[in-house]
Structure formats: C-alpha cells, structure tokens
C-alpha cells in the first residue's frame, strides 16, 4: 500500500465529494486544494468559482489569495465582486460552498474571526471574507478541516458563519432556506449532520483510524452513526496528482 499523510487523505476524501456537474464556490487554502484535485481527477467539468469573481476557473497552481491573476487568466470570465455576491451567490446559482475555518463546533458553525475574547483576542484571524454569505446562500456546504482540540471546540469564541446554529430546525427558523453543512471532512473521518438533531456525526473513518483517536481530537462528545464506513484509502493516481499540484504550487509561490 502506498504511504500517505493524514492531510493528503483529508484532501482526497474532500475532492471525492465533488461531482463533475457541480458548481462550487471555493474557499482559499484546503478547500481550494480539494476542489482542484477533483477537477484534475474524476471531475474535469466541475465549475469552480472564487469570490474575486472568477467563474469556471482552471488554475494550474493553487492560488495564494482569492484574487490571484492565475484564477482570472484561466477563468471563463471574471465578474465584479458585488455582482458575484448579489446575482450569482445570493441569486441561488451556486450549488455547493466549500469552506474551511479555524474553529468549528458540533453543529458546524465556523469561526474565522478571533481566538479568545473579541475585545481582547489571543489571535486575530484573517476574518470571514465572503464565508458568512457563502454559508447561507449556497445550496449546501462542505467543510474541510484538520481535527484537534483547539479547532474542534465545544463553544466557538466567535460565530463567523452559521452552520446548523443550535441544532434541530434552528437554522430554518432564522429564515435560512439552504441546507447548510452536509459534509465535514477531516484528516481522521467524515461527518454528516444527524437528520433530526443536526449534530455532525461520524459516518466514515479513514483507514487505520479508531474512535478513540477521533474523540481525543474533538472538544465535544463525538456522535457516531449506527453504521460507520471505512473511507477508501487514496489511490496512487489521486496521490500523484495531489503531490504534483502541491509541488508546482510551491515552486510558483517561492518565485520572487
């Protein structure tokens, strides 16, 4: 069996969640790696959109920011940001939003704003960008995040983007009509919301991972589905394409 890192398993499992005809709003960082891996493997027709307004972009290297020239040069077209948000995102044109975050809770609400008290932060994070609007306006949300006690927390320091809020029908009660987070892909497992409680529940564990490891890296008592699957390990091709993508990205990002 080919050797691989937990982070590679996470990106590959996340990539597999995308289909060829999906239209996906892509967050920078981990989501961007997963979405482009999907495009370079099983989903060449997937439409990737970044919030800088680049529609159906096909970057050869991963962007450092949403506004990289690479995204614009390889896009079908590029629209202004206000148009992106008003007519494309809030117009309900985008099926999936792919997000990451610094902190997540069991209802998949996300914090990308601040660690510690808002007025006296321990760490000031980059902020939400378009994530709050993506989280409510895309048909559904996929989240990719490596697990750890500091990131998978019982209570967020700040709610930047809502997921299933306080569970049950609390999201719908706020007047939000979209599905919210339907998949959470980590370096250890895959979670989906329980149909009733909406708590993110383990539905698949990556090969070689056990329940104790998942619990040790989560700040709340983890729920497991009645039947938990095993995530198929990366194929040699998935690993090769992902590693090539990262290698040429690193070369491009080191250039002065």
């Amino acid at each position, binding site marked *: 069996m080919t050797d691989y890192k937990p982070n590679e398993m996470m990106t590959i499992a996340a990539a597999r969640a995308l289909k060829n005809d999906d239209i996906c709003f892509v967050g920078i960082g981990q989501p961007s790696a997963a979405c482009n891996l999907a495009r370079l493997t099983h989903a060449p027709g997937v439409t990737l959109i970044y919030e800088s307004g680049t529609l159906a972009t096909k970057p050869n290297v991963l962007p450092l920011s949403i506004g990289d020239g690479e995204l614009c*040069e390889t896009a079908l077209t590029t629209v202004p940001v*206000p148009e992106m948000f008003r007519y494309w995102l809030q117009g309900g044109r985008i099926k999936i939003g792919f997000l990451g975050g610094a902190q997540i809770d069991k209802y998949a609400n996300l914090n990308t704003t601040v660690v510690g008290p808002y007025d006296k932060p321990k760490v000031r994070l980059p902020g939400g960008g378009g994530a709050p609007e993506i989280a409510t306006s895309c048909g559904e949300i996929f989240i990719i995040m490596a697990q750890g006690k500091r990131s998978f927390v019982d209570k967020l320091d700040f709610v930047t983007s809502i997921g299933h809020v306080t569970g049950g029908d609390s999201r719908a009660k706020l007047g939000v009509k979209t599905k919210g987070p339907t998949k959470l892909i980590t370096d250890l497992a895959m979670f989906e919301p329980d149909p009733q409680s909406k708590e993110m529940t383990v539905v698949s564990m990556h090969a070689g991972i056990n329940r104790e490891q998942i619990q040790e890296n989560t700040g709340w008592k983890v729920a497991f589905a009645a039947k938990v699957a095993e995530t198929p390990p990366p194929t040699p091709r998935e690993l090769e394409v992902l590693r090539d993508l990262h290698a040429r990205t690193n070369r491009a990002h080191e*250039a002065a």
Partner: protein
Amino acid sequence: MIHAQRADRAGNVLIEGVLGVQKEAVLAAKRSVVTVEEIVDDLGERSLNAVVLPHWTVGYVAEVPGGAFPSFAQGYYKRNNAFYKEWDSIAKERDSFLAWMKTNVLEKSPEAFARYARKHRAAAE
C-alpha cells in the same frame, strides 16, 4: 485610492482582470486617486464592454509604474509571491512593520521605488 492598468490624458481609467470592488470604491468615494501603470494618448483596442471609469468620476490620476507591488498588475507583471508571503511575518507585529516601513519607505525616495519597479517589471517580461 485604487490602482489600474492605464488612463488616457483626459483621465479616463481602464481596469482589466480581477475587478474586485475597485470601480465601486471610486464611485462610492467623494474624492479618489487612481494610480496607473501608464498614461497613454489612447486607451486602445478594447471590448465594447470594457470597464472604464470616465474622467469625471475620478479625482486624480498619477502614473506609478509598479504601483500594485507586491501584488500584480494584469498584463504588466506578476505578483512577487515570495515577498507576499514574507509580508505576513513583517506585518504581524507593529514593531517589525514600523521598522520595515522606516527602512524601505520613509527613508527612501519615490525614485528608489521607481528603480525597483522598473527592475521588477523587466524581470517579469
């Protein structure tokens, strides 16, 4: 204050590539300054739907080649990715930010930047 590719002598400004909220920022502002890579006699051949800020919406235009540094200007030069990443650590603490500003901006002349920008642009071509 925004940066764009070029303006003509009347002050009409052409923007190409990732537009962001540049046009909206100028239209929302009471006063604006647009720095451009070059001032030209004519904006040249362009799409019928090219993004142009008419001169009467723009306060001032200044020719500042390399003005997008360390980022890129579509069609002129690429971003300096290595410095773009380095900026994270420079800007993380106020002291390191102020020290960098003193050495590279406050104690330097616009001519020094122009020399740097020319070099950077030539390297990209």
